[in-house]
């Protein structure tokens, strides 16, 4: 499989920090891979997501997504790049409160200047596929946290991004909503071959991924691969690894 994202010796040092938040991190993400980044808080996993997704800039190193070196992009170039190639899911949903769910999901397609009829069809069929069509004409504040996060996931998926960045997407959800959301991500990964990079500290959420990078002090210290299709076995091996990390602390 070809590399969709390639990070080479990426380092990020914040002005007032004593240690680098990212220390010479290199890795590749293949097309339609579902990868999870784990680590304790302060291990650098969110910094990694910020730097990879054009939200922040690295101090040194290079990042290529879909053949584009993202450091070379201008301000508007980066905006266009986010519009065409990137999808985002954040812990705090980040839906636009004054728009209905339907309109929220339609915004990325409108930005890509698709014909209105096509936009309507795409939003409707995606909502039906993921079972949120009853909520389409409600406003975000009329929905539960789980429903909002699902809507925000669909907003990220609908434009078929090259890569979807998820930052603690289940952080604010109860366990059943979290499972629903993770299934949504898994489904879109399988059915639409969406490449996903998810940052989480939760072993259960990570067990939905194909591969896991474990971060500590700004470095990747371990890499776990899913051996079989059985999520439960993978979860157990992740849990063991996390327990081992905790005792090493």
């Amino acid at each position: 499989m070809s590399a969709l994202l390639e990070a080479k010796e990426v380092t990020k040092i914040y002005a007032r920090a004593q240690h680098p938040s990212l220390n010479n991190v290199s890795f590749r993400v293949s097309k339609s891979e579902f990868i999870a980044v784990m680590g304790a808080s302060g291990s650098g996993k969110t910094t990694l997501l910020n730097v990879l997704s054009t939200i922040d800039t690295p101090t040194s190193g290079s990042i290529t997504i879909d053949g584009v070196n993202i450091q070379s992009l201008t301000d508007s170039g980066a905006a266009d790049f986010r519009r065409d190639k990137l999808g985002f899911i954040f812990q705090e949903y980040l839906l636009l409160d004054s728009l209905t769910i339907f309109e929220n999901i339609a915004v990325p397609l409108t930005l890509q200047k698709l014909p209105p009829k096509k936009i309507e069809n795409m939003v409707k069929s995606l909502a039906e596929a993921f079972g949120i069509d009853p909520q389409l004409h409600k406003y975000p504040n009329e929905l539960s946290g789980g429903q909002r996060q699902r809507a925000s996931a669909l907003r990220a998926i609908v434009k078929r991004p090259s890569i979807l960045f998820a930052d603690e997407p289940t952080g604010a959800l109860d366990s059943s909503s979290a499972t629903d959301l993770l299934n949504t991500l898994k489904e879109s990964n399988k059915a639409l071959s969406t490449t996903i990079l998810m940052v989480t500290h939760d072993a259960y959420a990570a067990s939905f991924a194909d591969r896991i990078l474990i971060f500590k002090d700004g470095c990747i210290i371990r890499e776990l691969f899913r051996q079989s299709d059985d999520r439960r076995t993978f979860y157990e091996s992740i849990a063991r690894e996390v327990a081992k990390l905790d005792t090493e602390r």
Partner: protein
Amino acid sequence: MKNLSMALKNLKNNLSFYALYLLSVAFVIMIFFAFTSFSMNKVMLEKISNDGRIETMCNTISVFLMAFVVFYMSYSNRFFLRRRTKELGIYALLGYRKSTVLSLLMTENLFTCTGAFITGILLGGFFHKGIVFGITKLLDLTVNHSEIPLFNPNAIMKTACFIFAVVIVSVLSNSRFLFKTSLMDLVRYEKSAEKKMKFHAVLAVIGFWAVISGYCLALDILRGTKSLWTTVDFYPVAMLTFALILSGTVLFIASSLPFAVQAGKKNIRKFYTETKIITTPGFLYRIRSNSRTLIMLTLLSAATLTASSVMALTLYYPIAAVSRMAPSEIECRIEDENEIAAIRQILSAYSSDTDVTFLQTDIYKVTSTAEQLPVEYGIGTSKGDADNERILREAGFECIPYSAYQALLEAQGRTKVPEHPLRVTRLCFRLCQTICREARTCRETRTGYTKYFP
């Protein structure tokens, strides 16, 4: 979704949020429009101003008012923008370019300003009518109200231009904010940890005394001739007061207040009580994170107060002046008694005797050798301060009896003789009497005529 419908949706769903902005802008526009209409109201200005002084004052005030409104609106605009940081972050993440976000904000701003403009013009028109009505009632003037339009097209034009300028200013201020703030700050908008502030004892003390001495200095003007404002000079003392109060306010809020609270924390027995342990650190935290806003609000309300009191004084000035100014319709000064017959002859040639009422008033010219005399005593006596430099007047006070003044007003059909000039005249008389007593009195009789057209 197009920018336009997005902007409309934002407005519709955040109505209460925007209503505050819209109302404050509408209020400001109402004041501005009423003021502009008043300064363009030829009918009124003809009545109350005869030398262009009111017009100049109106123009000066309107520049001041405009500057204040622009400042106020760009500040409140920025304040509202800050509350929407998260929303701006979402736009950026979805791939909106900064220029597109800017045009979205501009569209919203245009809608609010148009709404505020219409509301402001409607209210301002009636407000202006109210002012005119109040002044004519108060001064007992005869004004043809139908000649004064409710909406003066010129004033509407001027206000519209001004609103346009305001929109431009807010666009500039928005773009500065947008292009200065990184995506990181927009998306990860949680406030970065507040720095622990150190409150310097020296600054705290300076701030405290600067505020106290600033206000004492301002109040010192009440002592009249003995105050520093007269003994030193007006402008240096005014500048000093301004500087003291400005720096004092900043230091007082940023240093003195928190310093005092911090010092109170050291008293352990008083600090560890049910309420103090919550309120004291809470107050310190709020000061730390909001001191700038607090300083701005304090100074802004001070500026608003100043602006509105200057405006009130300026509007009152013509009201007060008009009642003193020229109590007769046509007045001519005559130094030679023979001229009276000549004037009567000229008048009768152009009008019948029944339309014209003559009133003859004796004017007493009072001069003095006292060292300190009011400015009015010497006005118009030297080149540079006279309206018509070819006719310089002799220094002195021209006085008429109060009964003559009353007779003149009554001849004009003004039944209500204002209270205020009464006091002025009496004061003037008392002043004249004292001057007369201590100085050589030169009695020079002059005769004035008043022609009255009913």
